[in-house]
């Protein structure tokens, strides 16, 4: 015991060589050693193959897939040749800069959200609303001399980002209203909010989106049908809101009753209490789960492929699906996986950063 403590201490002080620590941890008993050897053998076998495939033997650029055929390496040429299709989908080719700028606007908004000076409900709402509108008008056009591009031609990364931000921007306020509604002192409101939340949460997302895209038009009057993309986004936002409402409710319930009493004793009314005392604390309490919900939602946007939207995964299919590049599907999927990873990883790192920062406010 004391020997272990001593060696730990030596390691902490950087006196024990790394290799010694490694050996001690991986080969402590004979079955530890066996498992370690098998894993190491696998890695040693796999790594050169992977590096060879991804880098050494890879074809980086070619007019078509012919140079790749028979080669041992990855055919990254498909990405060089088709990246614009993957990122921008069917958006008019000469207008791709608009789609690019629109994506950039969303990224800028996310980065700006990290600036503590903007962490006021009003500023943050304005930032997200502004970013969202910038995105929307750049993509759609029809103003400032930009040509009009209908949502049926939006695609690729831009469509994925649009669906994600629209769902977040619409869904978050809905989630707050539903969560507060479920805690309302008025039985009718509490009951209605509960019914809606429990019903929607009991349905699979695919059914909800399918209903909105395909079945709803039969049930709605013509003037209410609108664009299929918007119907899908509203339905998706409702789905998001119902899940997020429960997350916020968890955050609300964790708030100490004394907080509300102190706010009441200071003369703060319901809305002041809710906005300045209750919601900020509820958000802090529910932050890890909220970030998780955002990550899930980002990945779930790929479901719209089934109802005929051309988001990044669908445009990936198209990128290898046109004869020339059929053999290079793995490379396309790796590329798309990297895009998803970049977004989801930044999202969760941002969440971790927020959590660390907000811990300051609690003991």
């Amino acid at each position: 015991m004391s020997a272990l403590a001593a060696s730990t201490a030596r390691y902490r002080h950087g006196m024990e060589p790394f290799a010694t620590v490694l050996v001690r941890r991986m080969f402590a008993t004979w079955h530890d050693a066996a498992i370690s050897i098998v894993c190491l053998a696998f890695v040693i076998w796999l790594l050169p193959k992977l590096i060879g495939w991804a880098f050494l033997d890879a074809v980086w650029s070619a007019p078509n897939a012919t140079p790749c055929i028979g080669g041992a390496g990855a055919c990254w040429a498909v990405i060089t040749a088709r990246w614009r299709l993957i990122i921008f989908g069917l958006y008019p080719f000469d207008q791709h800069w608009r789609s690019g700028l629109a994506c950039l606007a969303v990224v800028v908004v996310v980065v700006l959200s990290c600036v503590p000076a903007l962490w006021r409900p009003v500023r943050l709402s304005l930032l997200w609303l502004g970013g969202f509108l910038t995105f929307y008008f750049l993509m759609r056009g029809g103003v400032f001399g930009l040509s009009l591009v209908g949502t049926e031609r939006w695609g690729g990364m831009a469509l994925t980002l649009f669906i994600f931000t629209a769902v977040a921007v619409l869904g978050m306020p809905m989630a707050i209203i539903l969560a507060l509604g479920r805690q309302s002192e008025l039985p009718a409101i509490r009951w209605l909010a509960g019914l809606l939340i429990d019903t929607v949460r009991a349905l699979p997302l695919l059914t909800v989106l399918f209903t909105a895209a395909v079945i709803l038009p039969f049930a709605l009057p013509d003037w209410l049908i609108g664009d299929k993309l918007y119907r899908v986004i509203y339905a998706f936002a409702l789905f998001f809101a119902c899940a997020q409402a429960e997350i916020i409710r968890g955050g609300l319930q964790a708030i100490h009753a004394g907080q509300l009493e102190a706010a009441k004793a200071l003369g703060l009314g319901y809305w002041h209490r809710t906005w300045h005392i209750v919601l900020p604390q509820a958000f802090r309490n529910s932050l890890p789960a909220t970030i998780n919900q955002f990550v899930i939602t980002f990945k779930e946007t790929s479901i719209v492929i089934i109802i005929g939207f051309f988001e990044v995964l669908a445009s990936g299919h198209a990128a290898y699906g046109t004869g020339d590049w059929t053999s290079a599907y793995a490379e396309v999927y790796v590329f798309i996986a990297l895009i998803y990873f970049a977004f989801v990883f930044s999202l969760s790192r941002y969440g971790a950063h927020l959590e660390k920062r907000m811990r300051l406010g609690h003991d």
Partner: protein
Amino acid sequence: MTDNARAEAVVLRGVSKFFGTFQALKNINLTVREGERIVVCGPSGSGKSTMIRCINRLEAHQEGSIHVLGTELGDDLKNIDAIRREVGMVFQQFNLFPHLTVLENCTLAPRLVLRMSEADAEKEAMRYLERVRIPEQAAKYPGQLSGGQQQRVAIARALCMTPRIMLFDEPTSALDPEMISEVLDVMVELANSGMTMICVTHEMGFARKVADRMVFMAEGEIVESNDPKSFFEQPKSERTKQFLSQILSH
């Protein structure tokens, strides 16, 4: 006689309060005049906290009437808001807002309720933070302060609303012993400034020093109410004697 000339700040007449079938307050009658310092004591569960929580309607009473500064407390939300603006409260658990800095804790209500400008509210807040001897902590979060410091901030936060009445609900009960005096010192100073105060506390030294009147409660009733000297030296009821012997014996 001069006492009777002063305006009535808080008047409770025949107040009863029930939690379900349990009667927490039984026919409470109490009049507090402006500038008066009342100390309420009694065993736990005697209704002390419930009584002062009725005065700013954190609890609703079911029978009798409560008038605060001439306004009757009822279901009328306007009256409740008006009264809460004039009545400050300090809690046992401090209840500072953990997501706001000390300064923001103090400026929030003056800005939102009194519609003060941020600059004015901050100036006022710093004045009160100096009064509770803690101005250097203004930029910190409550979680970074000791219990005594937090409770002093809570007092400053209440004072920032310039209340005419202050309620204290066992303000030192959650504190480590070495921090009690720093909070009591601030309360003594506040009492000396002429503030109308109703304090639920077991700090009998504090009570002797500042109280104009002691109120002893047991089982939801006011058992005895008297000036501190008579209260401590010639308690009338058996229960008061018993209670005093218990808390003064150690």
